[in-house]
């Protein structure tokens, strides 16, 4: 963009009479400066379409003092006898075009010294002073251009175009519009930036700052804005309010200024101009650089400005400004629609086991569940579950009860879950891998009196009955009537989730929600009898709800993945092949490993649908998958979801295009679900602005089990629909097309030395670094929680790509060091200093929780990074004993801190690393040992005596 138009103003004046061309020309020329009058005749009236178009064009032509007078006067003469005089002037030449127009038309012609500054005594000639002024103005613009584009502006990086938009603003208050408009703009900016301190620009080089804190009254706020101090920071948004100039009369002239443009192109990233002609609806125009602002974001922005202005003018002056609405009813409804409100597919009021039962009736011989050699048809599944259910009832389970299920993945797990539902109860799944305390807590909190588990799976307690699946597989003594009065509104399951704070809480989810989930996805995903699903996840993780019931309610075959196969990507990939699995649900972390296995040997050939859930998805690495599994063969769907909203909320099909663009979109809400993005005070935010995601609709669970207070905090009344909305604690923003960008957990926002930092943002940058296939970042406090010693530690998995990068000639150790150094350099190039991780540690794989998320608690301490804040517990042992010397060597080989009891192979060790360990021991002056010994003595503590024995005789 040529910057000249950003420093030019234009004014149009309608000459009703007295358009004496020769007098105008003479007066303009007598002023000096070289400006000439251009005259154009039209065979059309002033309000004709061509004349109107021409006026707009003349009002948009810049005048550059570097190549001419920096001032242009055009007289457009129309067929109806009227004329328009249009003056365009560069600010350095003429700051007030109206003054010149009055001189040209009025009773006082301009003096020959009409050039600005010509009357200043001595010194520079006028042209040189104009050039100086222009240079200063250009420097001010350059300053504005250096401001980074705001995230919430939804601009297009690198775009060179300018967008324009017209809007109206209600007006008519007693205070000057210039003041109230500025105040309204402050409120909108505060909402969009999330900061109460705002900066508003005017002409290039001038800006004011004030506080738009919500607690102040309207009166106090307006006073404060009126006395706003000049700002040091550059403003992103500029507001220029012009007042309609007076009609010029006299000397046979009647001339009426009708269009004033304080800029032709936007001086700011977003420049607003509002013409105050004293009417109750003011015309606004804005122009914005597409690099910083998108069209839709600006439309929302100006809409908010209009609503805020109306609210400021009409509210009780004592109202705190934080309570003024920035969206009117229509805008709020539009926001809600954008968030998916209003799409409610018909949901059958059927319970889960009824739907599965229907499948058993229609396709009794279709395979339902496979686990190793065990194959159950739908008839067998249903029959076996009915047997289990009868036995459960005999054991006293009644409708409305909760029954614990603590089983590893197996065919009987699925049968048991279905049996609990058939008995009219809700299942409470527990993972046998969880610590005993956690299991005890769950049985206690859920008030369980019966848990189906294998021997020793769950701690015993009084009043708690533990039953094995085998014990359920027995004919009942006295057949009991099937439970009556069951409804789809009954609870189907209670899944415990642990938030970042507080005790785990039980989320109670009714049957109807699961039916709604299937109603929302069945058709779109074309789920049906030909599909083969995996049950990969622990039943305690609600992703399994999707896997189990998504499959069995649509007639598919469920392949139960044995524990060992869920831990070993190569085995899992092989299982996908041997079972010809078509639908796979994975967390991104787990999928990254599967993808690596599949890359080495393409095995997942039948997979036609991959559903991601459980954690944020980085779409970029998916290109490798798409290379082998084109979109037409395998659909990748990223789903954002929460246990409290029944597994999923949104769905985004990830195409190569999404992957290339590193899209963070999680898509639109499923039909029946809707969402709102709200600020910390629960007020709505426009598309582009990040806030807390709130979810309403068919998937929202009713409550937490026995936690009325927490329920009241998290399940709030839905402002636009019946039922509750769930306050998720997740950060996100809507895009103008209604898709959601998920931006991580709100509590992933940490503070480090006063900076508010988004850990996910750092993680995302790390993932961009060449060769990085997975990444995690943690904040580590200093010793004893000393915040001064706090630092960010990053962990990366360097993929095979890293091997292709140039590296030291002598082996993979240097490669790893080079790799992490490069990752850190990359981070330093793109992140502000306070966000650059203090350490970057390469790991063979990130440790995962049973749910497949990164287990940050199991990330090792880095080797370097200054005073190890949360370093080894207790004083460092003497450095000369074999144990600590051995540990030092291990740490050198691995590149991170190692505990005395850490297992060599669990840390990522392998035979190659073992060979390097031997070499490193030799270099450190320690004795070697036969490599197989490492398999017998896998920890430092175990290996040290082996070395000590070899050292003594030596």
């Amino acid at each position, binding site marked *: *963009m*040529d910057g*000249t*138009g950003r420093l030019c103003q234009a004014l149009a004046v309608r000459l009703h009479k007295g358009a004496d061309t020769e007098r105008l020309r003479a007066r303009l020329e007598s002023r000096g400066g070289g400006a*000439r009058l*251009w005259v*154009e005749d039209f065979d059309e009236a002033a309000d004709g*379409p*061509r004349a109107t*178009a*021409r006026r*707009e*064009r003349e009002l948009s*032509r*810049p*005048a*550059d003092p*570097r*190549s*001419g*007078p920096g001032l*242009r006067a055009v007289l457009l003469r129309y067929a109806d006898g009227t004329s328009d005089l249009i003056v*365009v002037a560069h600010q350095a030449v003429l700051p007030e075009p109206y003054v010149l127009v009055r001189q040209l038309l009025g009773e006082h012609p301009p003096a020959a010294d009409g050039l600005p500054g010509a009357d200043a005594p001595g010194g520079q000639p006028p042209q040189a002073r104009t050039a100086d002024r222009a240079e200063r103005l250009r420097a001010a613009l350059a300053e504005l251009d250096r401001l980074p584009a705001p995230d919430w502006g939804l601009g297009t990086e690198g775009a*060179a*175009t300018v967008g324009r938009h017209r809007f109206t603003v209600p007006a008519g208050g007693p205070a000057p519009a210039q003041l109230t408009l500025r105040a309204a703009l402050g409120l909108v900016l505060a909402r969009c930036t999330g900061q109460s301190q705002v900066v508003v620009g005017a002409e290039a080089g001038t800006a004011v700052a004030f506080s738009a804190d919500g607690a102040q009254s309207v009166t106090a706020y307006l006073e404060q804005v009126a006395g706003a101090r000049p700002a040091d920071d550059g403003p992103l948004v500029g507001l220029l309010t012009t007042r309609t100039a007076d009609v010029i009369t006299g000397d046979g002239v009647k001339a009426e200024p009708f269009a004033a443009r304080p800029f032709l192109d936007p001086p700011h990233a977003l420049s607003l101009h509002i013409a105050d002609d004293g009417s109750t609806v003011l015309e606004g125009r804005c122009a914005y650089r597409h690099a910083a602002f998108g069209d839709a974001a600006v439309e929302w922005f100006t809409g908010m400005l209009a609503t805020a202005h109306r609210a400021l003018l009409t509210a009780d002056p004592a109202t705190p400004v934080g309570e003024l609405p920035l969206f009117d009813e229509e805008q709020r409804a539009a926001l809600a629609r954008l968030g998916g409100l209003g799409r409610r597919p018909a949901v059958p009021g059927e319970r889960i086991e009824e739907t599965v039962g229907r499948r058993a009736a229609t396709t009794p011989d279709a395979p339902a569940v496979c686990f190793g050699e065990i194959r159950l048809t739908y008839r067998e599944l249903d029959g076996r579950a009915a047997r289990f259910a009868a036995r459960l009832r005999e054991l006293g389970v009644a409708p409305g009860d909760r029954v614990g299920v603590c089983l590893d993945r197996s065919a009987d797990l699925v049968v048991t879950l279905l049996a609990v539902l058939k008995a009219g109860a809700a299942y409470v799944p527990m993972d046998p891998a969880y610590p005993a305390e956690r299991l005890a807590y769950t049985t206690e909190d859920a008030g369980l009196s019966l848990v189906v588990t294998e021997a020793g799976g769950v701690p015993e307690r009084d009043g708690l009955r533990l039953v094995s699946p085998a014990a359920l597989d027995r004919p009942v003594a006295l057949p009991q009537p099937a439970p009556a009065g069951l409804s789809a509104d009954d609870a189907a399951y209670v899944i415990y989730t642990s938030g970042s704070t507080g005790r785990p809480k039980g989320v109670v989810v009714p049957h109807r929600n699961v039916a709604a989930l299937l109603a929302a996805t069945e058709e779109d995903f074309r789920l049906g009898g030909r599909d083969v699903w995996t049950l990969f996840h622990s039943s305690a993780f609600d992703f399994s709800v999707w896997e189990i019931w998504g499959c069995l309610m649509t007639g598919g075959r469920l392949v139960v993945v044995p524990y060992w196969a869920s831990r070993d990507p190569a085995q899992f990939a092989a299982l996908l092949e041997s079972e010809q699995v078509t639908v796979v649900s994975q967390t991104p972390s787990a999928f990254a490993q599967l993808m690596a296995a599949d890359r080495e040997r393409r095995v997942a050939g039948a997979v036609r649908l991959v559903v991601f859930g459980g954690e944020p998805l980085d779409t970029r690495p998916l290109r490798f998958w798409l290379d082998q599994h084109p979109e037409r063969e395998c659909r990748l769907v990223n789903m954002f979801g929460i246990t409290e909203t029944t597994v999923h909320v949104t769905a985004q099909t990830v195409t190569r295009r999404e992957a290339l663009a590193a899209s963070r979109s999680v898509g639109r809400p499923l039909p029946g679900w809707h969402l709102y993005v709200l600020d910390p005070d629960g007020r709505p935010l426009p598309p582009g602005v990040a806030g807390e995601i709130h979810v309403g609709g068919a998937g929202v669970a009713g409550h937490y089990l026995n936690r009325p207070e927490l329920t009241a905090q998290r399940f709030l009344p839905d402002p636009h629909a019946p039922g509750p909305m769930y306050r998720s604690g997740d950060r996100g923003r809507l895009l103008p097309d209604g898709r959601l960008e998920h931006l991580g957990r709100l509590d992933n926002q940490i503070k480090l030395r006063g900076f508010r930092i988004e850990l996910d943002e750092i993680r995302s940058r790390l993932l961009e670094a060449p060769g990085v296939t997975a990444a995690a970042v943690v904040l580590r406090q200093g010793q004893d929680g000393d915040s001064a010693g706090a630092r960010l530690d990053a962990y990366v998995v360097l993929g095979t790509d890293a091997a292709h990068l140039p590296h030291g000639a002598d082996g993979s150790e240097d490669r790893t060091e080079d790799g992490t150094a490069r990752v850190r350099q990359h981070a330093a190039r793109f992140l502000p200093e306070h966000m650059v991780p203090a350490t970057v540690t390469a790991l063979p794989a990130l440790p995962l929780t049973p749910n497949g998320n990164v287990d940050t608690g199991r990330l090792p301490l880095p080797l370097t990074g200054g005073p190890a804040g949360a370093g080894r517990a207790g004083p460092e042992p003497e450095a000369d004993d074999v144990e600590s010397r051995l540990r030092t060597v291990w740490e050198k080989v691995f590149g991170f801190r190692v505990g005395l009891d850490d297992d060599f192979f669990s840390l990522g060790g392998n035979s190659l690393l073992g060979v390097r360990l031997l070499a490193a021991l030799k270099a450190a002056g320690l004795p070697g040992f036969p490599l197989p010994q490492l398999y017998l003595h896998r920890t430092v503590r175990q290996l040290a005596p082996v070395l000590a024995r070899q050292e003594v005789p030596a």
Partner: protein
Amino acid sequence: MTQLLGAPPLAGKAAVITGAARGIGRACALAYARAGADLMLTDIARDLPGVPYPLGTAGQLAHTAQLCREAGADTAVVTTAEADVRDLDAVHAVVAAALDRFGRIDVVINNAGIAAPSGKTVHDITPDEWELMLDVDVSGAWRMIRAVGAALTRQRGGSVINVSSTAGLVGYRHFAGYVTAKHALVGLTKSAALDLAPFGVRVNALCPGSVRDDEAAEGVMLSEIARSLDVPVAEHEETFVAAQPMNRLIEPEDVAGAAVWLGSDASRQVTGSTVTVDGGFTSR
């Protein structure tokens, strides 16, 4: 930058066209007006001593402007100025006036040129004839580039179109001066393209083949060339048509179409190139 759907390709752009009184210049001006451009049209508008045929007139220039106003888009402005491209000050004045009126210049078409004095064996050309030819056909274009360069680089965009000829690509008997000048214009194009590319400014050469004399455009080239060669126009045209692979002579509109493309954003990656509009003549 994508064009708005349906917007004319040069809407909002301002162009300077030299030699606009008639012929290819007039055809370009008309095509540009239809494509939505603001126009500054210039011509020498008088005869030159040493050129054996009449050049464009002030009346013809005014007529071109009038045709453009009638054909032009609703918002386009058409202004004219008389200027001799041999006169650097005059060329500067044209550029200043265009910038003053339009605020910017997006396209310059260096179309002014002469075809004669020609028709002589190379060693028979007089020094004055030689210098006149180069002064108008090469240096004229360079003067315009010199005058407009600062504005174009400041704008970080623009397109300069040098109207060369097939005589800029191949030789013609008895036209050594013309052929030399038109070849030089291709060289100027390539070098200027390299100099201005960092500023987003494009420079291309447009090489028309023999253009039919056209009543509407009042073109006279072919007859002047025939006269230089001392052959009847009809015979000359017949000979030329026979040499055209497309079996017809070029019309001024054919050249103007290429000029619109070169001036529009549709050709945004085209610079330093020679665009030939010759019905395949130089492909033989």
